[in-house]
């Protein structure tokens, strides 16, 4: 009798333990899955070029030689970083300027065809980039826009603008209606209520949208690849893809990984700092 209860109790305890540890194992699995390849990039970047093919989990000798190689005068990597910064920031600013008022109208004003407009805006973002690029490439060639910033910024609006409008529409929806009502009781027109009351209060939502837009624009590849054929104007994602060695089997992987780290680290740090904000933006406050 006693043994039976004891066994039962032990079993429950063991099951209880499994229940406790299973999620922890799962979490460890997810973290490993997400970070292991990234970790490998960082480790490779910090090896000496001679140790490139080492498989040790930590560099035998730490070295920043690869990072130095990235910025060697011939690579044009610094210029590519600058180009990416210009393209991504301009895209972000333009997107916010154009998208905020549209999002406000979609969130707060009642007008005919609102859902149609919203549907159109969302639908445009689903179109494959290449379908836009082929005709635009031809157009930009005709008007001499190849190798210019605007040739990269304008097409980038095709995916940045729908994202921003959607994001901001959700944000405006969550702000209390009383804000404008109070403003209009005090004599503001709807336009003034928007400019003087809503825009300042919407700063957090606009900030989140700005981060998301910037990351997407920074990561953009196919537009920048198509619209530019001069090294001087390359963005960093294109430059990095062209970091190749003499032959297929003699590739400067260490340098490539160092370049990858340089391109990625600002994003990763930004994502870690603003993770709550970003996930809240992504899932509308679902993750507490």
């Amino acid at each position, binding site marked *: 009798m006693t043994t039976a209860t004891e066994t039962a109790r032990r079993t429950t305890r063991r099951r209880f333990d499994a229940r406790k540890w299973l999620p922890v194992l*799962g*979490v460890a699995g*997810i*973290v490993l899955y997400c970070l292991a*390849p990234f970790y*490998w*990039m960082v480790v490779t970047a910090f090896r000496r070029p001679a140790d490139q093919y080492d498989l040790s989990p930590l560099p035998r000798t730490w070295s920043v030689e690869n990072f130095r190689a990235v910025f060697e005068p011939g690579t044009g990597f610094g210029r590519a970083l600058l180009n990416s910064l210009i393209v991504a920031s301009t895209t972000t600013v333009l997107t916010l300027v154009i998208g905020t*008022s*549209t999002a406000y*109208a*979609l*969130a*707060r*004003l*009642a*007008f005919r065809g*609102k*859902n*149609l407009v919203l*549907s159109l805006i*969302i*639908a*445009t973002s*689903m*179109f*494959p980039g*290449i*379908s*836009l*690029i*082929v*005709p635009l490439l031809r*157009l930009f060639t005709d008007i001499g826009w190849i190798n210019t910033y605007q040739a990269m910024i304008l097409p980038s*609006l095709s995916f940045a*603008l729908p*994202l921003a409008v959607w994001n901001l*529409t*959700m944000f405006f929806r969550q702000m209390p209606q009383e804000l404008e*009502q109070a403003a209009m009781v005090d004599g503001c027109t*709807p336009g003034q*209520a928007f400019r003087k009351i809503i825009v300042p209060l919407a700063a957090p939502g606009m900030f989140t949208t700005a981060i998301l837009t910037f990351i997407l624009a920074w*990561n*953009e590849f196919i537009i920048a690849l*198509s619209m530019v054929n001069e090294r001087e104007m390359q963005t960093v994602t294109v430059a*990095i*893809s062209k970091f190749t060695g003499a032959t*297929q089997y003699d*590739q400067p*992987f260490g340098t*490539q990984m160092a370049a*990858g780290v340089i391109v990625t680290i600002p994003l990763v740090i*930004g*994502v870690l700092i603003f*993770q709550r904000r*970003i996930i809240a933006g*992504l*899932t*509308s406050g*679902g*993750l507490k």
Partner: protein
Amino acid sequence: MSMTTDASTNSAAEAGKPGSGPPGSPGRRRSGSAAGTARLASALVSPTLLVLAVVVMYPILAALYQSLFVSGQRLDAQGFVVEGREFVGLGTYADILFGPAAERFWNAFWNTTFFTVVTVTLEAVLGMAMALVMHQAFRGRGLVRASVLVPWAIPTAVSALLWRWIFAPDGVANAVLGHQVLWSSQALASKIAVITAEVWKTAPFVGLLVLAGLQVISREVHEAATVDGAGAWRRFWHITLPLVKPALVVAVLFRMLDALRMFDLPFILIGQQKDSVETLSMLAFSEATNVHYGPAAAYATLLFAYVALIAFVFVKLLGADVIGEVRSQVPRRGGIRSRRGKGSAR
């Protein structure tokens, strides 16, 4: 798409409801300032529509038009494109679908379809599993939340380089497998490499979207089912899955549309003009860079039609409600999940 079908009825219905109207007391304001509101709305909405007309609608129509011509197939002595083009009607499409270009087109078509079906299936399963784990986890939430965002934030170009290094002949993948696989040249191996890299980058993201769907399911439903004697597996199939289905369907739709335009990853990871991984985007790009604008425009148009068809089928048959969250009156939690899927993996 769904969004458009009930747009008119909906906005009409909405206009009548209090709270959806312009700020201010709806009934009284409507008659006085409906015209003013409409003017304001069109002033606010038109810049976005104008930009999208230039960068999206114009190119789509221009591609359709250009695909009816053949031009730029010849270069002059200086290497410039010979001006003038020849109208061929649907000739280019005939070449692509049945003629000399058919082999390359159908190869790219099946590659694109294969990548889409396999990656999205894996992403949905893995993302679902991750979401269930994250939903249960009480310890390490901050850590898991941060790490899930890392693959999402890494540019696809960088992740393609990273996986090219992992799958290099002397890379860590072969070392771990203890087997020499030539990932960049064997057909199946290079497909697997592309799929692995794509799934790695996007599955955690699907997990986040599904998690947002999981978190709106009330605990009582699960507790009631448990009291009624339903095991974990039955609870998953009969409660969790049906309830997260709307979130999952929208996430899968956006992932599919994104996978169908896959370009960066195979382009950098394996290379250009490799039959084993060439997608429709890569094919159109390759023609465009050879200034074969007619065929390039035709490939781009075919891809666009394919994407539109898939979106249509999803919205009609599976009822993916893409703008549901915004259309609805009260902002619900998890509303942005539908948007995210799309934004991600450019």
